[in-house]
């Protein structure tokens, strides 16, 4: 589904953020990307739907070359759902309109169909009653669940999560993770940047560990948590799992 091969990215000629990153996500797989902050994990996931450009290497999503200048990026992105750390709901639109905007303008769905779909998804994330409110009237956890519903409304072939729980108060983390776990169990292909190792243990197939722009470890979940091969991954795990 997602093929990442030998991707390099520089912010400036002397500052390389991604170094020779190669990995893949197959259909129905849930891959968790973790690593210390500044390791390039968010940058890597944003390269997948071309929100961040990269200078060399190749990424293909469902056979479409992301790096090809001829690729219709809006069309590609409409098939790839993305959830951001800071939710990024559109504050001037009601919740239901947040869900309908891209459905009508990008997919060309009639408004009534888009609304029906939007309401179904809101019900699924448990927020049907909030449809007529504005984003600022919702809690962080609710906003993030709306953001997930908004991405799902586009019927994505794969979902990207960029630290979806990092900006949330602790008591709201689980309501968002529950939605993500359900999604994973239904067979959605997911690439998730997160520090939530509980989530990784529960539903991940593979875990990728990144440090200083490199993919240091790319292992099946049990192998990763069993005994990581690299020192850096061991250190990282001991730090975040010890408490």
């Amino acid at each position, binding site marked *: 589904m997602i093929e990442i091969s030998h991707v390099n990215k520089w912010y400036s000629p002397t500052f390389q953020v991604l170094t020779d990153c190669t990995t893949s996500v197959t259909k129905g797989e849930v891959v968790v990307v973790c690593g210390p902050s500044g390791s390039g994990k968010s940058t890597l996931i944003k390269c997948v739907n071309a929100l961040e450009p990269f200078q060399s290497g190749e990424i293909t999503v469902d056979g479409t070359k992301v790096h090809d200048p001829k690729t219709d990026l809006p069309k590609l992105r409409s098939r790839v759902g993305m959830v951001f750390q800071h939710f990024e709901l559109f504050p001037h639109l009601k919740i239901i309109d947040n869900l309908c905007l*891209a459905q009508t303008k990008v997919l060309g769905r009639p408004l009534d169909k888009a609304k029906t779909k939007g309401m179904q998804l809101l019900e699924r994330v448990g927020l049907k009653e909030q449809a007529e409110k504005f984003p600022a009237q919702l809690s962080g956890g609710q906003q993030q669940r709306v953001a997930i519903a908004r991405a799902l409304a586009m019927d994505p072939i794969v979902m990207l999560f960029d630290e979806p729980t990092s900006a949330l108060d602790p008591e709201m983390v689980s309501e968002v993770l529950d939605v993500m776990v359900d999604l994973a169990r239904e067979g959605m292909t997911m690439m998730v940047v997160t520090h939530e190792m509980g989530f990784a243990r529960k539903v991940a197939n593979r875990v990728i560990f990144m440090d200083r722009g490199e993919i240091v470890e790319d292992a099946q979940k049990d192998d990763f948590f069993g005994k990581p091969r690299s020192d850096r991954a061991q250190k990282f795990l001991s730090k975040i799992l010890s408490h």
Partner: protein
Amino acid sequence: MLGSFDFDVIRRSLPYLFYEGMTFTLTLTALAAFGGLVFGTAIALMRLSGYKLLGRIAGLYVDFMRSLPLVLVIFWFYFLVPYIGQWITGAPRPIKVGAFASSLITFIMFEAAYFSEIMRAGIQSISRGQPAAASALGLNYAQTMRYVVLPQAFRNMLPVLLTQTIVLFQDTSLVYVLSIPDFLGAASKVAQRDGRLVEMYLFAAVVYFTISCIASFGVRRLQSRIAIIR
């Protein structure tokens, strides 16, 4: 002392002052504000676009317009437009452009320079995550601007835009250099015809003051209401 003044001249000229003068002033203000906002937003988008050349052209335009006195631009434009029109269309004679059209175009071009800076600030005030989220949903650049960025920028900047429009409302009185009967022009005509300069100019000042004051008050109320919604 007040006995030597004739304030009845105001009452007698009210229909002319408001039906002709104020109508013209308000029409010019509204059209120029609208046109200036549309044109100004386009300039702001040019300045913020990734294309250096476009950005530089827009920047030069803004600097140029802001470095000239408005009266001069109105004056020059009135005399130059017919010749520019002739040059563009290749007509044998200078094109006839009415005083209203000429002053409207001038105000739109001039105000666009100011509105563009306001809209630029408004667009920049929106976090980068917003256009990123819009792109991630598959919206293209134009859709992202139209449905996500500009509505928010416009709303955030509405008080400033309206305040600038109040300034514009006062500035429209400068069309007197083209001897157009806007509100001030109309008052001035009556003043000179009847030799009642003090009365008419005093009255004009009161009217401008009242309207601008009420409008400013409205903007302040709006500002506090927007602050609550956010």
